[in-house]
């Protein structure tokens, strides 16, 4: 900072040009004095003095810098909320409720297998292993339900849904217990399940299918909806905040530059170091701020589009696939409802991968096998509209390379699963129920192994997306750390530099 080297060239203007201004001495009492000051301020004649103008300008500069900091803070606040919801609240909720659906679905699948094999206890994975998996799934379901309840937070509708699932689970286990007792008493050969066993299992399975699974699935969808809404809202705000930061930063820069030019003219000084530093600081803050907001918008986009959307799609595809596979067991277990279970299988398979049948073809499984197997085995990453369904959604989302390769192996594995299903139903249609049961349970066939391979392919595709999700959230968290304090501190520093810059100029007038 420099000391005054000359007198201002228009010193006379200061007091003489404002004859009408009531001098401070005329104010007798504090209140009147205050009112007098306010009137002075409003009348605006103080602006006709050089120090008055400098003070006014300084205030304006500080206000614009504060506005810049505020715009940046609000933008970052939105980014922080978006990352919190997507990465730390609703995202994990999707995983927890997805696990719940899985565990529930697996429980019912294991029960169907145990009842189907009857006294042939080593068929398929075997009764002991099925019971072990049932217990495991039950404990997973309880844990996932507790987690889902915790994550539901203050959302009473969601909490109530979780509670209904927990209550229904108790009833389900009671019915399964009855069915298992009846099953053991009857000691029936595989596939010849007595009426009372089937009847009790129907009650349990209906409860699962009509009440428990839909609620668990809807919880997942609802969490997905929360993520989508938060994403759209927060990302739009973050993107808009860039313009606000640019506008506020541009305003602050204009004020600083024009003020500096005016001071240069007024005081015939080329550069004011304080103001120059303040200007540079403002430019830096705007540039870095816009950069950070841009990066955050990018992280949110990647977390949502490349990660979350596909993770959710894969979670739904796995859930529906397992449920469809269990429908094969139910189809064999309960011939009275075979039509329903066959139709359920077609509906679920269509939800996973769908090709519109030609007008002259009936929309049944025979048509579906042909169309779906063809679509799955001739997949090309550049043809994004060859089929619909969840895998179709995924085909439109994946990027060519690792992701599309993973999808291709999912599709190949799915085609095998479909061929196995076709074979199993052909055996039933030809009257060889026992052969169909052996085939489905993996005796002399690879049906179970093929399904496990398909599931593994789905999981590995999901893993590429959840890695992308974690990466984006991690980067977003990293990019935000420290940015709570940067804008206000930077604004205070810039404002201080402005004050330091104008202080010597005001000092020339003898009062500050």
């Amino acid at each position: 900072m420099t000391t005054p080297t000359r007198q201002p060239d228009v010193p006379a203007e200061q007091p003489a040009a404002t004859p009408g201004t009531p001098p401070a001495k005329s104010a007798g009492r504090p209140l009147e004095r205050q009112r007098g000051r306010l009137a002075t301020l409003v009348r605006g004649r103080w602006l006709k003095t050089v120090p008055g103008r400098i003070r006014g300008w300084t205030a304006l500069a500080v206000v614009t810098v504060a506005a810049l900091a505020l715009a940046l803070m609000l933008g970052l606040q939105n980014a922080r909320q978006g990352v919190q919801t997507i990465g730390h609240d609703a995202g994990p909720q999707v995983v927890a409720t997805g696990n719940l659906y899985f565990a529930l679905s697996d429980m019912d699948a294991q029960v169907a297998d145990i009842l189907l094999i009857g006294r042939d206890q080593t068929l398929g994975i075997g009764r002991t292993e099925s019971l072990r998996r049932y217990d495991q799934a039950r404990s997973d379901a309880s844990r996932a339900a507790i987690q889902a309840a915790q994550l539901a937070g203050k959302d009473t509708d969601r909490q109530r849904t979780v509670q209904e699932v927990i209550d229904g689970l108790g009833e389900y286990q009671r019915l399964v217990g009855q069915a298992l007792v009846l099953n053991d008493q009857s000691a029936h050969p595989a596939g010849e399940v007595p009426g009372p066993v089937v009847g009790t299992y129907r009650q349990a399975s209906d409860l699962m299918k009509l009440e428990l699974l839909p609620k668990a699935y809807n919880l997942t969808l609802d969490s997905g909806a929360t993520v989508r809404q938060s994403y759209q809202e927060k990302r739009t705000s973050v993107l808009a905040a860039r313009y606000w930061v640019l506008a506020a930063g541009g305003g602050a820069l204009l004020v600083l530059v024009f003020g500096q030019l005016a001071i240069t003219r007024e005081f015939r000084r080329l550069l004011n170091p304080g103001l120059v530093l303040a200007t540079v600081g403002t430019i830096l803050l705007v540039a870095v701020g816009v950069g950070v907001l841009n990066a955050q918008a990018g992280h949110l986009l990647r977390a949502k589009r490349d990660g979350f959307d596909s993770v959710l799609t894969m979670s739904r595809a796995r859930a529906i696939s397992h449920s469809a596979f269990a429908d094969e067991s139910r189809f064999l277990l309960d011939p009275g409802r075979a039509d329903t279970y066959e139709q359920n299988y077609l509906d679920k398979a269509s939800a996973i991968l769908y090709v519109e049948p030609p007008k002259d073809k009936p929309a049944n499984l025979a048509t579906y096998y042909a169309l779906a197997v063809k679509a799955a085995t001739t997949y090309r990453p550049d043809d994004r509209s060859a089929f619909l369904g969840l895998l179709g959604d995924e085909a439109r989302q994946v990027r060519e390379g690792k992701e599309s390769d993973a999808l291709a192996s999912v599709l190949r594995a799915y085609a095998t699963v479909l061929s196995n299903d076709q074979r199993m139903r052909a055996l039933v249609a030809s009257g060889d129920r026992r052969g169909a049961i052996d085939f489905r349970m993996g005796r002399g066939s690879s049906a179970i192994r093929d399904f496990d391979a398909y599931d593994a392919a789905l999981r590995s595709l999901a893993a590429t997306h959840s890695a992308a999700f974690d990466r984006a959230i991690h980067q977003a968290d990293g990019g935000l750390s420290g940015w709570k304090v940067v804008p206000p501190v930077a604004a205070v520093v810039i404002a201080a530099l402005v004050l330091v810059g104008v202080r010597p100029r005001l000092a020339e007038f003898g009062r500050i």
Partner: protein
Amino acid sequence: MPSTPQGVPAGTRRSPGHRPRTRRLRAASVVLAMACAPAALAGCSLGSSDQHSILHRHSLVIGVKGDQPGLGLLVNGHYQGFDVDVATYVATRLGVPASRITFRTTPSSVREKAIEDGTVDMVVATYSITPARKTQVTFAGPYYVAHQDTLVRTSDRSITSVHDLARKKICAVKGSNSWRRITDERSIPAVPVDVATYSDCMPLLMNGRIDAFSTDDLILAGFAAGHPDVHLIGAPFTDEKYGIGMRKGDLAGCEAVNRILTGMYQDGSAGRFLDHWFADTGAKLTTSVPQFEGCS
């Protein structure tokens, strides 16, 4: 945005010697104001991205059926039925009271078009969610999963499952897929008898000119209500997911409707609607929230 350093130029009016600086400062204020304008515009336009959403509407036009007893039936200028009750419940929760809902008969063939061109805001008209339709329409729900079942004369004991329809005369409604599900998809050699509309089947069934009428159980239950001489055999074999269709892409609207539907089952309203229209018809009614399809 603080954009105009107003007082600064005004102050120099009486000191002509400072005119250049005055101009410069005034120019600064203009530039500042212009710099802020686009930002302000961008800010303003943020909220209006959901122009075609069913959310935040003063009134709603809802497409329903007009000729389906129990579901959507136009009686003396008023629509009534389960679909109408569901639509009214949803609209009310969306903030549109019954007085500001306009119901409009929307036949099956024009549902997609009516949604697309905005003739109706949403469709609640036994509208099954299918993968192909999902490419044109965003579906909330399903609000109910109906199942194809078969309506027979109570005196007829020979039909207890869909396979018993072999060589029986069944109603084949023009444009409907239901009878094909028996003859084509299941290859059951039933004899289709062509009729123009669903309501034509009932007199034929009662006077014995056909043996069975097979379609969604809710539709059958609607016809069967008040007719003790016909009954549902209770052997469902398909899932028909009745969704609420809205303009493609209205995800926020779809998600909101799904939450409302969850509430409709939780507070018992859905059970009441179903009971009111279909009790004592032999249809197995599900009073627990269906598995939603997901908004896309």
